[in-house]
Structure formats: C-alpha cells, structure tokens
C-alpha cells in the first residue's frame, strides 16, 4: 500500500470515529422520540449544517472503505493488480454519489 493511501485511510478513520458516533446518536434521537418522516424532513430541510456534516461523512466513508476493502480482498481472494484498483475507485465513486445524493435529497426536500 502506498503511504498516501495509508495516510488517507488513517485520516478518514479519525473523521469517521466522530461522524459515525454523531450519526448513530442522531438515529437514536430520531427513532426514540417517535419522529415522523415529515418531522425529520422539517429538521433537515435547508439545514446547511446537516448537509455539510453528511457530506464530510460520506466523503470520508467513500475514501476509507475502498482502501480497507482493497487490503481485505488482496489477502483473502488473491485479487491483485489494476483491475482491483479500478474496481475500488468505482466503489468509491458509487459510495460518494449515492451518499451525497441522499444527503442532498433530504436537504432540498
């Protein structure tokens, strides 16, 4: 693994440690009080802080997960080479696009 990939994974891990905790707390808060979908969207609509937080979360996950998965696949399946790197870049793009789309959707809803 190149040192830059290593640094990227460690750096995004630090971001995810915080954002995953906030994300889980948010889920518990929303579910425990019995908020309806309408009430949740009312809180997220036009909330720039919410959008910025989830954009950071999604991008960190999109960088972190494929780097880790690349190492797991190399060790456990013997998949190596350029095809693996291309697949992981594609996975990163999918996570980023789907995640940002979801965050944006509840922001503009």
């Amino acid at each position, binding site marked *: 693994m190149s040192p830059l990939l*290593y640094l990227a994974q460690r750096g995004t891990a630090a971001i995810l440690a915080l954002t995953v905790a906030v994300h889980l707390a948010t889920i518990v808060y929303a579910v425990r009080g019995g908020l309806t979908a309408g009430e949740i969207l009312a809180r997220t609509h036009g909330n720039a802080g919410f959008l910025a937080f989830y954009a950071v979360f999604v991008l960190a996950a999109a960088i972190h997960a494929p780097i880790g998965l690349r190492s797991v696949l*190399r*060790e456990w399946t013997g998949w190596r080479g350029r095809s693996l790197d291309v697949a992981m870049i594609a996975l990163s793009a999918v996570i980023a696009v789907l995640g940002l789309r979801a965050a944006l959707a509840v922001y503009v809803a």
Partner: protein
Amino acid sequence: MLAVRIRRGEGPQGFQTFAVPRRANQTVLDVVTEIQRDQDPTLSYRFACRVGMCGSCGMTVNGRPRWTCRTRVAQVAEGESLTLEPLRNLPVVKDLTVDMEPFFTKWRDAHGYFEPGETPADDFATVLPDSAERQEVDAGIECINCGVCYAACDVVSWNPDYLGPAALNRAWTLVNDVRDRGQAERLAAVSTDAGCHACHSHMSCTEHCPKGLAPTFAIAGLKRETARAALRRFRRKA
C-alpha cells in the same frame, strides 16, 4: 520417558513418535539430537551453535515457534509429550528442516543491508549512544535471523509476498543508521503492498521473538517514516 511426536510427512498420519528419557536441564534440541543419534539417523534437523546465537534451530514446539536450543523441555512439555514440527510459512526440505531462502530473499527485497553510497565518507560518523536514532537501532539490532517471527506471523501465511517482521525490523534499524545513503530506496521498498502497511499489528512476532525484540514497533516506525517521507514529497510537488 518423554513421548516425542515429530512431523515427517503431511497430514494427520505424518507424525512419527519416539520415546526419549527425561534428563536434567534437557533442551528440546537435546531431545532431537538424542533421537537422531540413538534411534533414527535419517531424521533431518538443523542446528549450529547450541547457545542461542546462530538462529538455525527454529522449530514449532507444541504449536509455537521457538528456538529449540534455549527451550527447556520442562518449560514446554505438555504432560510427558512434545510435538515437533518444522517452522511455519517456509518450504519444508525434510522433516524439521525448512528452506530459509524466501526469508533471506525478503531481507534483500526490504533493502535490509547497509548502503554506503557512491563515495566513501570522509571521516568516521559520530553516533552518540544516547541519540534517538541509536536507541531505535539498539532496540532491534540483536536479531539472529532465526525465522521464529516469520513463522509466527499470520500476515505471511495469508500473503506469501509480505516481507515479514524480521526483514522490516532490519530495514528499520537501517533507516535509523545515520551513515546509510540508501534511505529513499529503502522506504520505497518497504512501502509496497507487501511492505510495512500490510502489518495487522497482531504482535505475534513480538510475542514469540526469542531475543525479546519488538518487530511490531519497528514496523510501526516504518509506517510513520514512510508517511512522513510521502508528505514531504507531496509538499514539494504542491
């Protein structure tokens, strides 16, 4: 009497059992030598110094890699039985003898050798014993190349290309050698997918090293140093 099961072939049937008398202060290597001299001269194993210096008598003793010349039977026998197998992660030549070539090839691949540079230094380098670099070197320099850490490492068993704890530990001692002129190449050599970043920090190497070294921390040092070097390159480009 001690019941000694020795792996001489593959599978569950690959063991041969010998009965060996218990003796005072008997080492595992003494047991193997007694079998080879008195019971079966075809038994193959390897040793040289018998005093923990040469690193050639590594074997798997009751499932754990050990230097057998400094391992007393009393320390490791389970009841009155011993199970001896060759070191893991290395090709078996015969019985308890493994081919160490992949192990030493990886030392070379990790640039685990001193690189003096194109021109000789003008003068002796002054290396203070209490300097940070010298302390790091001292922590890892006593490796005897026995291969015990390499056999203990799960990452090597998953990824046969992985350079392994011993080679990376040696590379780390050289990264801290202020006289060495091959640092950029060495850091590049240990930054491949088979290099220091593949370590899972299980610490099996550190747990099993008979010399009490901590290759895990040497590998962590390489991770830090390669990251610093990458950041320096990144800043220069930016």
